[in-house]
């Protein structure tokens, strides 16, 4: 097993170290807080000759993603990072990359979406790509951010997959925090991640058309093929996570990770950096005799339907922490969890809880309140509201909303 080197490092630097180790050929980026430290670190690596990549400072996030579309279609490994408005500006290209099966890797440094403008993290930005056809992986700490970026290229570039992968990392909470991180030698990373072997690419030796139009005779077949590719990624994400564990000794879960779920009456479901807080809270509540467990959704797309069904087991209530809201409906993650558990052998009550928006703190008290709500729902045999806002300051709202 590879030994690695443990050091205290900012999250963005750890991500940049991971990207450097993956030897991208083309990096293109446009600055936006909180992604900046990642792309600055990569720029310095290129400036110092430590990273042999074409680094293109784009005129917008839209152009950055477009530059990577051109690079990836020409057969090289391509990477960018962005946040919030920058990711939204890339949206059109991200749909294209998925549909033309170009395995670009993105870091989504999560940040709330304007308006109101703000810098703190929630998941409204990255979860807007739910239906784009890309793979989205959410990480809970800096070590997982480092490890998952190494895994991302391997998943994306697999010929059974060939899809963009976005590694979603909560802004500031992970990008700007210093944590002990184990990084690995280039030779070990090279052994894990071989050079990119494109399945098809632009070359005059074999002229090929990328990005044709289709009509009613063929569009559905392209949709079907893309759907199958995203579904195939389920096994690949799990396999790559296990391969990584065998080589580097770290496993953060495949599609999901579970914590104290076996005999749990109430199971918390969440994604991203809040998982660390929830693990602590579960330990404390378990110490108080509360049968609570935790499921980390690591892969939002493909969605871990079967894994969730199994992990929920006989739990009576599932409380979903949502940091993205489908306005006029409910939390985005809660919607998917409910759908996945609809035909589970023991269908639990599912609570959709809005918490952590715009970086608002989630702490032990938040978790206590959520567990209480779940128990009340169990007593009542029903969930009172499809979307419950935790810690809502009703005293600040105009009277009409109270």
């Amino acid at each position, binding site marked *: 097993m590879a030994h690695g080197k443990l050091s205290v490092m900012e999250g963005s630097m750890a991500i940049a170290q991971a990207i450097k180790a993956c030897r991208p*050929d083309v990096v293109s980026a446009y600055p936006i807080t909180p992604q900046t430290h990642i792309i600055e670190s990569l720029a310095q690596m290129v400036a110092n000759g430590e990273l042999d990549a074409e680094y293109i400072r784009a005129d917008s996030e839209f152009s950055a993603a477009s530059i990577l579309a*051109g690079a990836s279609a020409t057969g090289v490994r391509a990477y960018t990072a962005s946040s919030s408005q920058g990711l939204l500006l890339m949206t059109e290209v991200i749909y294209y990359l998925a549909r033309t099966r170009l395995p670009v890797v993105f870091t989504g440094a999560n940040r709330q979406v304007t308006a109101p403008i703000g810098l703190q993290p929630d998941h409204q930005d990255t979860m807007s790509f739910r239906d784009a056809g890309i793979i989205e992986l959410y990480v809970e700490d800096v070590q997982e951010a480092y490890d998952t970026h190494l895994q991302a290229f391997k998943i994306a570039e697999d010929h059974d997959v060939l899809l963009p992968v976005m590694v979603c990392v909560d802004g500031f909470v992970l990008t700007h925090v210093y944590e002990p991180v184990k990084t690995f030698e280039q030779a070990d990373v090279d052994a894990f991640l071989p050079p990119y072997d494109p399945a098809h690419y632009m070359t005059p030796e074999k002229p090929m*058309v990328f990005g*044709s139009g289709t009509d009613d005779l063929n569009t559905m077949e392209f949709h079907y093929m893309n759907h199958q590719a995203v579904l195939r990624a389920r096994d690949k994400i799990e396999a790559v996570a296990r391969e990584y564990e065998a080589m580097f000794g770290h496993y953060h879960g495949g599609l999901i990770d579970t914590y104290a779920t076996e005999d749990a009456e109430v199971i918390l479901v969440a994604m991203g950096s809040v998982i660390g807080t929830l693990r602590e809270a579960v330990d404390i509540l378990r110490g108080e005799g509360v049968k609570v467990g935790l499921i980390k959704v690591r892969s939002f797309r493909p969605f871990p339907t079967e894994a969730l069904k199994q992990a929920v087991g006989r739990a009576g209530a599932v409380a979903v922490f949502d940091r993205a809201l489908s306005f006029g409906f409910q939390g985005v993650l809660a919607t998917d969890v409910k759908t996945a558990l609809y035909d589970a052998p023991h269908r639990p009550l599912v609570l959709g809880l809005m918490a952590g928006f715009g970086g608002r703190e989630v702490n032990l008290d938040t978790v206590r309140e959520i567990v209480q709500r779940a128990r009340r729902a169990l007593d009542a045999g029903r969930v009172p509201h499809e979307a419950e806002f935790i810690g809502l300051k009703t005293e600040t709202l105009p009277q009409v909303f109270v």
Partner: protein
Amino acid sequence: MDESIISKYDEMLFTPGHRACPGCGASIAVRAILEATGPDVIVVSPTGCVETFTAQYPYSPWGVPWLHVLFENAAAVASGVEAALKKRGLADKVKVIVIGGDGGTHDIGLGALSGMMERGHNVTYICYDNEAYMNTGVQRSSATPMGASTMTSPAGTLAWGKEQPKKNLPAIALAHGIPYVATASIAFPKDLTRKVKQALAIKGPKYIEVHSPCPIGWGFDAAQTIEIARLAVQTGLVPLYEVSEDQPLQVRKLPKRVPVVEYLRLQRRFRHLFEAEGRQAYLNLIQAIADENVIRYKLGEQNSEIDQN
């Protein structure tokens, strides 16, 4: 499939059978451009007429690698293609060109084009300028000339068509300090291919604008495409010139100019300028644009230095 058919078209870089309208100026431009590039090229096209009439799965007339991503990003995509070719050690062997329409170039793709030029990518950007959004049914673009009636700048009792002059994108390209900018016309194909070859021989960003009439959108007989294109040049409305680092301004001289009305009256998009009373002032405005071009680009002087084919 008949093997003889395959072999007949195998060597062609742009085969017949695509879906361009009869008399399409843009398709003539594409053929002339590929004649100049030869096979060692990657072509990027934004969404637009050329994309629509050449790329309907599972068919393709392209004998060279061709990449369509979106409407507003062809110059950025081409930047990425060029970067990848550098990494693959093919930068000297394989050229990168863009073939895009005026909507994707003058309007929605201008930011990406400016970025590509500012960063200095070795990309030849060629705009086939048919002076409106033709693919979507003839709507005004910033390259639509003054006075033209389109579906979104219609002439009416209060309106006389587009009120603004055409955006001068070659001048914007020049302001980026790039090493080669040229205008061309499908009426002068040898001049066009020569300019494309010239651009490909120069390293860095190049911009070429090719005036490409559209029978459907402009309203003229499909057999007249070349004649319309020629008249546009001969009136002075479309000056043909090139600017490079070595030679400041080379122009196609107009020893005998044609009045703009002889060009305008052949096209349905300008018909309102001749049908209603009191429109002479607008015709005078358009003639003034041509007169201004003659002065600005020195079109009237003799002793042209460029090939007069």
